[in-house]
């Protein structure tokens, strides 16, 4: 299976996009479009999309022209009746026109259906058995990602809202919901698959090119449905392996006094919901499961499921009062002193 359409085709597609709509020229830069894709699970969908869209535009133009010409023809001379309006006439028998139109429609529909079924068969399974299996658990309103299986390795770890994958490798995703229905979707890489409590849906994707791809929940899941994004970071296999090995490791012990103080604050205020592997000591550990695993928080680029970038300012604001950024989430407004806040942020920033 090819991982990307041939260059010529891509250029043609881009040209059609540009011709259709001026902003289309810039579509390649838009992170959520699915007409210019980068993966084996999404490319056939894009081809089908362009094809059916082309046919659709043709049909719209054809019928619209037919209506307009029909109206324009209406200006031709026509006998009038006593009231001065165009005279009522039986009209020619135009039923053959309807028959021809319907027959052509049937042929076009049949062709579209065949193309659809071939595409469906083509993308319903990955091209080869995926080396990586992920469990993605969709929560209101964030994504928990557990790396279950990588090649022969069975060591697991948990992260959140950011999925790293090696370029050119199919990835199997098992979708789990502990609460309501969500939908897992990164348009440049794969079509939607709903995440439904009571059943585990399985999907797959494969990134053809290194880069960061945006995804978002698309099944309405409550108050903060709008802020339930995630990112897929596709890396060359060597870099991915490096990332994977790093994620397996526990968090390092904090060194600076502020961070050490911050760890204490974290253990008392945050650890009931958040995990940091390796934090704490024999009497207290951070193994909370209600919120995202923060063991390698600083390796992630976003906070709050793609809501704000992971910068010092946003991190502090989030810790202090996440409700002001993403109202309605489970994370409470933390009652921290300024000192505690600075310390805990200093600690979190050691979690690279």
């Amino acid at each position, binding site marked *: 299976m090819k991982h990307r359409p041939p260059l010529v085709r891509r250029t043609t597609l881009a040209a059609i996009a540009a011709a259709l*709509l001026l*902003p289309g020229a810039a*579509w390649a830069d*838009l*992170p*959520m479009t699915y007409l210019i894709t980068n993966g084996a699970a*999404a490319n056939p*969908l894009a081809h*089908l*999309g362009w094809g*059916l*869209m082309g046919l*659709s535009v043709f*049909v*719209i133009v054809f*019928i*619209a022209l*037919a*209506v307009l010409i*029909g*109206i324009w023809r*209406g200006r031709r001379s026509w006998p009038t009746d006593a*009231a001065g*309006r*165009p005279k*009522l*006439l*039986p*009209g020619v028998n135009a*039923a053959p*026109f*309807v028959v021809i*139109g*319907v027959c052509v*429609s049937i042929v076009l*529909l*049949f062709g*579209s259906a065949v193309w*659809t*079924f071939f*595409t*469906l068969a083509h993308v*319903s399974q990955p091209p080869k058995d995926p080396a990586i299996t992920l469990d993605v658990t969709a929560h209101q309103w964030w994504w928990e990602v557990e790396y279950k299986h990588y090649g022969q390795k069975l060591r697991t770890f948990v992260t959140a809202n950011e999925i790293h994958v090696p370029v050119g490798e199919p990835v199997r995703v098992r979708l789990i919901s502990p*609460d*309501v*229905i969500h*939908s897992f979707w990164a348009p440049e890489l*794969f*079509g*939607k698959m*709903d995440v*439904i*409590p*009571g059943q585990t*849906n399985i999907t797959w994707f494969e990134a053809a090119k290194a880069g960061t791809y945006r995804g978002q929940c*698309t*099944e*309405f899941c409550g108050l903060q*449905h*709008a802020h339930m994004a995630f990112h897929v970071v596709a890396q060359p296999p060597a870099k991915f392996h490096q990332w994977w090995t790093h994620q397996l490791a526990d968090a390092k012990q904090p060194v600076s006094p502020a961070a050490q103080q911050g760890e204490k604050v974290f253990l008392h205020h945050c650890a009931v919901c958040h995990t940091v592997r390796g934090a704490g000591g024999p009497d207290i550990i951070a193994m909370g499961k209600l919120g995202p695993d923060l063991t390698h928080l600083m390796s992630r680029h976003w906070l709050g499921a793609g809501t704000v970038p992971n910068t010092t300012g946003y991190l502090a604001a989030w810790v202090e009062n996440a409700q002001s950024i993403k109202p309605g989430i489970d994370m409470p407004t933390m009652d921290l002193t300024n000192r505690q806040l600075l310390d805990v942020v200093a600690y979190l920033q050691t979690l690279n």
Partner: protein
Amino acid sequence: MAEVPTYRTPEVITPTRDFLDKMEEMWSDPPGIIGWLSTVDHKKIGRRYLVTAFLFLFVGGLEALIMRLQLAQPNEHMVGPHLYNQLFSMHGTTMIFLYALPILSGFSNFLWPLILGTRDMAFPRLNMFTYWTFLLAGAFMYIGFPTGQGTDVGWFNYVPLAGPMYNPGPGVDIFSLGMIFLGISTTAGAINFIATMFRTRAPGMSISRVPIMIWGTLVANIGILFAVPAVSLDFFLLWLDRRFGTDFFNVSGGGHPLLWQHLFWIFGHPWVYAIVLPAMSIVSQCLPVHCRRPLVANSAVILATILTMVLGFGVWVHHMFATGLPVIAMGFFSAASFVIVIPSAVSVFAWVATIWTGRPVFTTAFKFFAAEIILFVIGGVSGFMTAAVPLDWQLTDTYFVVAHIHYVLIGINVFPVIGGIYHWFPKFAGKMLNEKLGWWNFWLMFIGFNVGFFPMHISGLLGMPRRIYTYPAGLGWGDLNLVTTIGAFLFALGVLVFIVNVVVTLLTGKRAPANPWDGDTLEWSTSSPPPHYNFGVIPHVGSLHPLWEDRLEKSEGRTILHEGLKLDEEHEIPGTTILDAEADVILKMPGKSFAPLIMALLISGVFIGMLLEWWWISGAAMCAMFPALLYWFWPSAEVGRSPKESRA
């Protein structure tokens, strides 16, 4: 409807002035509030449906405009998620359930007896009852919203989000009970339309002479009869889950959330056809009048309408292509969704051929109907794209589908409805709507609609999900959404011009002649507005185009309008046979009554008691229904009079 054997053979008369005065008095309602509350006149009921549904359209439109302001730019803070989620839920619910079907019921209630050449619907009191229950169910569904307790999980109401665990508030209970309540109205209405079509057509209107508008509504109502039980059951099961802790949809109790979706869409997709087929049949009926020729391929379009409704029950899974169903199953439903395009193509080509081979008159009504063809095709092909399973995995739940649903519901419902009001306003109100304002009305709506809704296709193709209250910058959605918002306001302005036109026309418009467009069907043979009794004598129908037959070459028979059966002993209409429409009975129609209103109020009581869990209210209301039904069905002396007495 009390059936009385044909104990007399009515004489055939040509009505005199005195006779018509007598009929007018017999069929009119007492003045004032008493007459207003007790009437069973189908024309008044039809007008009330139209006005009430239009008010709901207005409210739903305001909700949409607030959402459009919020979405006009990225990261706006005009409304928060709590209000936004209620707005889109109430907007969808209002438009789909409280506007789209009731407005068509308004047309049908008003027009059916006139088009069928009779004096009332088959069950006049049931007819009044369906209006009252619609009104009260609509009010019921709105009781939560003004206090911030409206449903906030969308009109599709997916569980478990709508279940007791994630949505304990009253909003979903109000919505669930309201839907069951509204289902009573819809079902009763459907039964009434079906009985009216099959038993009360004018003599001679055999099945092949039934105008196409009747077919569209009939087919839709047969569909409703099969579809509504699924959704009523769905909401009832949900209510049990929410209030009594049953586990129909609860995973930990062995239930499954997809059960909700199957039951909902088995109803939901046929419902889409129920709210577009009658509107399409309005186009099929009226467009030829403004094109000065009969509809091309009339029978094929009728058969296509029936086929659409039948196939419409076999495509519901295309709403669930992303739920992880087996590939083979999806392939089947995908194929069915492609097939359903074919009957739609029949209608489109028939309309285009009618314009081509006719001589269009550029009335406002014609513009709306011609626009409908183009909007229908746009909404149709976007639906065709979503029928392709793998492509739908990308398209579904994005703004592409929002664009699709609005092209379908506004393009194929609102445009024909507005066009139909221009067309039939002479009958509804006895006046002609202003064509100058009509020009503004049409172009503002048409341009506003396309400026507003076409860019939604593109924001959808750029990946914008539905039902988000805000979105970040940098995804290419901002400018498109701004254009959409501008278009939405233009469209709203067009609707406002329509309202102005109606008000101005009612106040100052010129009186309409009986048949201003030279229409072909029987409603145009009565005065504008029609008298209370519709027809002084019941016409005898001789062809599909009763008022055109002397001008069309191959007319099968002759329609007789000015002499007919003398049916003047209280509210009488002829009952006719199903296929050939031969008169076989004189139907004694019930007259005015408070019983429909009382029954509707008692049903409201049942549902209010269920909502508040004050069971004694529900119990008391149910007990009171027995005497109310006795009152409803109490034989009246007038109806029961023997021929001898009534002649005396």
